[in-house]
């Protein structure tokens, strides 16, 4: 490319040396670029500036870094854990549970109280030690006691390893979902080696991972909060499942930046939302999504301890009728968004089409119910929500709609996560607007509905005998025979208006054509990155 310098004499006389220097500079830049830095071929992507797309390296972008690199303590950041820590079982995109570190399993006796696994004999940890009964027992006990989000799965469980290949879990309460809950992404089934358990505080971004996974976390090629590099484990027992030599997970908080990087091949997959869908489509990316949580109101105070009106099921139903879910869902999450009436996701076994049709938008019906309950002039109540993840946006939209039927929502928006949680669990707010995962129904019972559920979902510990009985029945029923019971539970919850969901929120994966296998797991609603593979 020719560069024009000073072609006519200047005050300085003759051609400018500065102009010649500029010409040389441009030539240097062009020479170094080779007229194209992003030629779509892969290099070592550990540091992240070269293009990534080949069979060698998979580069994924997440919006947030992991809260922890310890499988037992990691929050919702399964993507940072799963590559390095194999789980006992393995959930496929079809919802089938396949062998992982355990090659078979069964419930012993009746009532889903004792769960027994038979381990494979060819798996080893990255330090070379075998994945045997003692190691698995120690890892499960650590996960039970470590206090992470999913520790409750093994709460009160007694774990034994009678021999090298057998592990038995005697549960404190019936649980029909152990095969699923010990799969990748739930944390407790991601087995940590004895070396790692000897010093769990060492499971940081500064040290190699201590699992038996398909990949090994490489701290030398990683920078905390920026990018995390995983290299294929040469000792993995099934190399055919390792689709890439390297996986790099970058933290890219800005979606437009992620779109730019994906369009140049520097990212293969990024996780975002519908706001960049059109830009991503223009860049040749495919959007793949599935509802993974519902956003809406939880009536914490169903017994009316703080807000007497909420004790009335008619009042709670009136609130449901007063919300125009279809309009709000489209306005908040785009035209393809799904309104939500129940807690089960649309693709789950417990999803009830009958429940989904319950509360069509009807302000007259809402006023009628309020009048029947003795609140013809309306009432006011306090609501807590968070100033992130769109919760406050949903809350304000609901607030406006309830005002039209005479209900005043006194909204408190808390922007700090821990403080928000603290206010919920203090049981001082009768209701809240938040997002909740579209769990399988058994987990919804345990985590959301029962008096023993998480305080974030049930701070008042409210209960109902009929519901408790249904949940107990579900716990003792084989998982593959419980579809009708799951639907019955969801219909009960909707009929009694314990919640006022508004819309499902989807985790959207934007994928380059060079990658396939982006399929969602039914239990978690997220895609399993170990299934991602080069497109054939």
């Amino acid at each position, binding site marked *: 490319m020719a560069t024009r310098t000073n072609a006519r004499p200047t005050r*300085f006389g003759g051609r400018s040396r500065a102009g010649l220097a500029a010409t040389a500079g441009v030539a240097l830049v062009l020479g170094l670029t080779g007229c194209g830095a992003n030629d779509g071929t892969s290099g070592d992507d550990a540091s992240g500036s070269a293009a990534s797309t080949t069979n060698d390296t998979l580069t994924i972008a997440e919006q947030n870094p992991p809260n922890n690199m310890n499988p037992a303590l990691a929050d919702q950041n399964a993507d940072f854990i799963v590559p390095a820590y194999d789980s006992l079982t393995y959930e496929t995109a079809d919802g089938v549970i396949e062998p992982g570190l355990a090659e078979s399993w069964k419930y012993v006796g009746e009532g889903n109280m004792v769960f027994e696994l038979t381990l494979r004999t060819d798996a080893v940890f990255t330090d070379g030690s075998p994945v045997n009964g003692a190691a698995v027992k120690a890892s499960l006990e650590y996960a039970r006691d470590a206090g992470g989000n999913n520790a409750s799965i093994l709460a009160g469980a007694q774990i034994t390893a009678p021999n090298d290949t057998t592990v038995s879990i005697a549960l404190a309460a019936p649980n029909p979902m152990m095969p699923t809950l010990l799969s990748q992404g739930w944390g407790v089934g991601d087995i940590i080696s004895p070396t790692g358990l000897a010093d769990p505080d060492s499971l940081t971004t500064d040290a190699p991972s201590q699992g038996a996974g398909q990949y090994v976390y490489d701290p030398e090629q990683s920078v905390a909060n920026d990018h995390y590099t995983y290299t294929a484990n040469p000792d993995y027992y099934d190399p055919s499942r390792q689709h890439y030599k390297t996986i790099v997970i*970058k933290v890219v908080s800005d979606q437009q930046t992620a779109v730019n990087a994906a369009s140049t091949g520097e990212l293969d997959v990024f996780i975002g939302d519908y706001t960049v869908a059109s830009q991503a489509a223009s860049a040749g990316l495919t959007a793949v999504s599935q509802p993974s949580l519902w956003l809406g109101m939880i009536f914490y105070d169903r017994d009316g301890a703080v807000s007497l009106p909420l004790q009335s099921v008619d009042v709670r139903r009136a609130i449901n009728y007063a919300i125009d879910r279809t309009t709000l869902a489209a306005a908040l999450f785009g035209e393809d968004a799904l309104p939500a009436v129940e807690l089960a996701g649309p693709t789950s076994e417990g999803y009830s089409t009958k429940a989904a049709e319950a509360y069509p938008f009807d302000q007259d019906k809402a006023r009628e119910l309020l009048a029947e309950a003795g609140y013809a002039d309306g009432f006011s109540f306090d609501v807590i929500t968070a100033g992130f993840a769109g919760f406050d946006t949903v809350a304000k939209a609901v607030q406006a709609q309830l005002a039209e039927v005479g209900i005043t929502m006194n909204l408190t928006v808390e922007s700090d996560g821990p403080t928000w949680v603290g206010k919920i669990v203090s049981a001082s707010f009768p209701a809240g607007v938040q997002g909740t995962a579209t769990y399988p129904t058994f987990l919804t019972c345990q985590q959301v509905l029962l008096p023993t559920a998480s305080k974030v979902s049930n701070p008042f510990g409210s209960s109902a005998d009929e519901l408790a009985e249904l949940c107990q029945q579900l716990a003792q029923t084989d998982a593959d025979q419980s579809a009708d019971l799951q639907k019955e539970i969801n219909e009960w919850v909707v009929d009694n208006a314990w919640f006022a969901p508004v819309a499902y929120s989807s985790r959207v994966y934007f994928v380059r054509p060079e990658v396939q296998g982006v399929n969602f797991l039914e239990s978690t609603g997220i895609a399993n990155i170990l299934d991602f593979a080069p497109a054939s």
Partner: protein
Amino acid sequence: MDDVRNILTRWVLSAIPVLFIVSLFTFLLTALIPGDPGRTILGLTADPDKVAALDEALGVNRPLPVRYWDWLTHALQGDLGNSITSGAPVNGALQDRIAVTLFLIIGAMVVAGLVGVTLGVVSALRGGWLGRTIDGVAMFGMAIPVYWLGLVLATVFAVRLRIFPAIGYTPLTESPRDWFLGLVLPVMTLGLSSAAPVAKQTRDGVLTQLGRDYVRVLRARGFNERTIITKHVLRNAAAPIITVLGIVVVGMFGGSVLIENVFVMPGLGGMAVSAAAAQDITSMQGVAVLFTVFVIVVNLLIEVLYALVNPKVRTS
């Protein structure tokens, strides 16, 4: 040389209280952020008893003066502690990131200086519509959000033209070519957005000098214009230009936070953002101390340069 030595001595002595005040201020501000590290580590819905136990183990329930004294005594021995959230040593995390930010700042400083001075000189010498245009561009440049400029440059030069990468950073030791290419867009973004005040000051300074009697005398004595501008006018206008450049460079540390986010660079700015979000006091302290050292060094260099070009300062 005595003057430079005096400047150095004065700055070293004044750096100590500055570092102490900044570290204390940062500590207090971070400690006042609502929330607790234990819940950040275990997750929002973790068992409250477990969260409380972890907070106790992390020592975050100790009185603030005790916590600060603990940090200070270790910092004076070179140990900046461990990240509260990741457990990794802060020293190591800073080492991983310091080069990225330094290359970004130094490169941007060079761009801001070269572009700003060039535009300022051209604007002063040519005047007329060109001078007014450059003035307008400079004002526009000062108003442009650096974040927006970064995204625009990435869209044009990375996405459309495929000349430079859109994100990432390659260490110099790994690939000098990729290192350079990865720095071009971030450096240009930060540098161009900072060139405007330099251009403005250069134009004003050159115009002022051109109106001085000594310039008329030099012209009358037959000196050519290039010599007058480069050897006399610029030299006399340099002092305030250097001062503005120093202010601009200090401001670049704040701008680097945004640039590192746009271009996904593992620098100190990104570390500061994630540490603040996680209420990771030790990491925040480490970044704050390092940034303060940088600012002190930059101001020191500016003062030394200022003294070198302005004899009145040396003799005062």
